[in-house]
């Protein structure tokens, strides 16, 4: 004969769930369903009383059962102690929805050697890691604020607190008839100054003050129009 897993033909369907009613392991709706049934069923009320008694007797009996020998406990604790010694990364993040860990301290009966080992292990256990990470973030933020271009409301222009743009250097050959005052006037109008020269062919290197690159072409074009002062002007090779 095999296990009769069909629902017992005699008896009520609620009777089959009475033990879970006794142990409080039913949902609210199931519990209500049974309570409604019990109001009108004397047979199930009697079975309930019987189950309550049986449940109590069985719990007492199971509580009286012996456990394994102390060897099992000692073996397990020894193994986790040796596992802990090689598993410092175990204190990582908990899985989703987990409750936070309980505060842990040295066992009171750890012994001097055990406490020494724990003390030596402490620097390896990254309990300070969150604080260090926070400090690093703050320092990085401060550096970024200092270095990253800062938007300043100056009529729509963007200025930076970073490295200054490189000045534009031009190669200019002045007309031999040009006077010093004419040259000064031209340089002044360009916002330029002579930084090198004369090289072969009488070329000077002049440096324009940093400005919007889009105006560079206009300045060179305007300078070339002054043929009375300049023979030629071009962007100097780097």
């Amino acid at each position, binding site marked *: *004969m*095999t*296990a*009769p*897993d*069909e*629902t*017992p033909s005699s*008896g009520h369907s609620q*009777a*089959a*769930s009475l*033990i*879970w009613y006794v*142990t*409080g*392991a039913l949902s609210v709706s199931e519990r209500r369903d049974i309570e409604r049934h019990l109001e009108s069923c004397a047979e199930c009320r009697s*079975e309930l009383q*019987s189950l309550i*008694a*049986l*449940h109590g*007797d*069985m*719990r*007492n*009996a*199971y*509580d*009286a*059962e*012996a*456990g*394994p*020998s102390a*060897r*099992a*406990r000692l*073996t*397990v*604790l020894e*193994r*986790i*102690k040796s*596992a*802990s010694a090689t598993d410092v990364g*175990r204190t*990582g993040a*908990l*899985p989703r929805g*987990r*409750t*936070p*860990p*309980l*505060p*842990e*301290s040295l*066992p*009171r009966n750890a012994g001097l050697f055990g406490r020494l080992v724990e003390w030596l292990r402490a620097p390896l256990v990254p309990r300070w890691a969150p604080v260090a990470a926070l400090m690093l973030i703050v320092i990085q933020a401060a550096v970024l604020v200092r270095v990253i271009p800062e938007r300043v409301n100056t009529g729509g222009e963007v200025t930076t607190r970073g490295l200054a743009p490189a000045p534009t250097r031009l190669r200019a050959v002045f007309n031999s008839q040009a006077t010093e005052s004419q040259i000064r006037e031209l340089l002044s109008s360009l916002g330029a100054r002579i930084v090198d020269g004369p090289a072969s062919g009488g070329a000077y290197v002049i440096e324009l003050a940093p400005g919007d690159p889009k105006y560079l072409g206009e300045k060179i074009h305007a300078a070339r129009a002054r043929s009375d002062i300049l023979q030629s002007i071009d962007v100097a090779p780097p």
Partner: protein
Amino acid sequence: VDPADQQEVPDLELLAATAAGGSTAFETLYARYERRVYNYVCTFVRQPALAEEVVIDTMMAVWNGARGFTQTSRVSTWILGIARHKALDAVRKTKTHLDAAPLDQAAEIADTAEAALDSIDRNCQAQLMLRAIARLSPDHQEILRLAFYEELPYEDIAALLSIPDNTVKTRVFYAKQQLRGHLAKIGAEPVS
């Protein structure tokens, strides 16, 4: 943290602390489950030494797998599930198991556990109850322990044993009937 201070801490918190490397929390969890796991395992495994090995393997699996607990069941269901798996595995390896007996022969089982109880005072109701339980088939012993002692919901038991919900209910029904019969035979106080 002294394990004595954690007696009221829920299983779930102890397991979370264990997952974070809390050996004290694990010790509390171990103390809470050691005897329960051992006696549950004895449902399948005859030899006490082998049952102890299964307890050790189970609790090491709890220690190593605490971080993988997904809260889809109770902690007790999870731990007993590990124990069941390891016990059945040990049984397969050693071939020393309690064969599931047909229900109509359950009363005839000459369980060695019963012999071990012979010296126990027959007036002790708890021991008589254990004697009656020991006469049940392993399937019935298991399901009564899970329902009456571990107080697992029938859905959890169904998941643990890989059987339908209704099978859990009917198996409990028949196990209870068998148990009452054995109690009457061995002279324990009648339970209704």
